[in-house]
């Protein structure tokens, strides 16, 4: 699979995850979000940015439990809970948010 955008081709795997994390940009993130039927808001971008920073630092997409805890630590308890994150990303913050953030599928995510 691939995404065509502004004359550039972005390769994705069979589940829609970007093949090359370095190709990610906000425009391709918007397309990835559209494919997930998600309207990106400031709150969504905040999580996406957090995930990308986490990946840069630790070279993994965190498990949902770890993501929830880490977001709570950084953005406050009202955001560091699974209800908030599932409202933003109904099919799972791990799966959907990581995809939009251009990260690989989280390790251990089925």
């Amino acid at each position: 699979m691939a995404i065509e955008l502004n004359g550039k081709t972005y390769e994705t795997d069979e589940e829609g995850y970007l093949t090359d994390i370095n190709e990610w940009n906000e425009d391709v993130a918007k397309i990835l979000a559209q494919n997930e039927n998600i309207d990106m808001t400031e709150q969504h971008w905040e999580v996406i940015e957090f995930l990308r920073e986490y990946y840069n630092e630790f070279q993994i997409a965190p498990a949902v439990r770890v993501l929830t805890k880490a977001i709570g630590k950084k953005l406050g308890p009202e955001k560091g809970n699974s209800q908030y994150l599932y409202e933003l990303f109904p099919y799972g913050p791990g799966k959907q948010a990581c995809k939009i953030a251009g990260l690989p599928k989280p390790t251990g995510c089925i």
Partner: protein
Amino acid sequence: MSEGQIKKFMYLNRKAPHGTIYALESLEVVLIAAAFDQDVSLAFMDDGVYQLKKGFNTKGIEVKNFQPTYRALDDYDINKLYVEKEALEARGLGAEDMCVPVEVLSRAEIGKLMETQDVILSF
């Protein structure tokens, strides 16, 4: 999972990084299994101590640098990391060369810890 009985899991790592896939595979299994909320510890013996030797730069060999991921283990509530004293000495290394906080134990002490485990996974 939290309803179940908590068991003691030890991951025993004895292989150098990069030369074989064991180090990376072990790390991935540890992260996946962390979802099961067990009592996890990691032991590094023999060439396994090299997995934690800080300062990996894998650009030249064009493989992913998985060393930063060891620093995420604490987020996964995995903070019992044991490193074999004799292995460090034979390799000219010390605890200060490790990329994460570790407890240095003798082989015999690691052997005693192994006796207290419910499950030992060997890599």
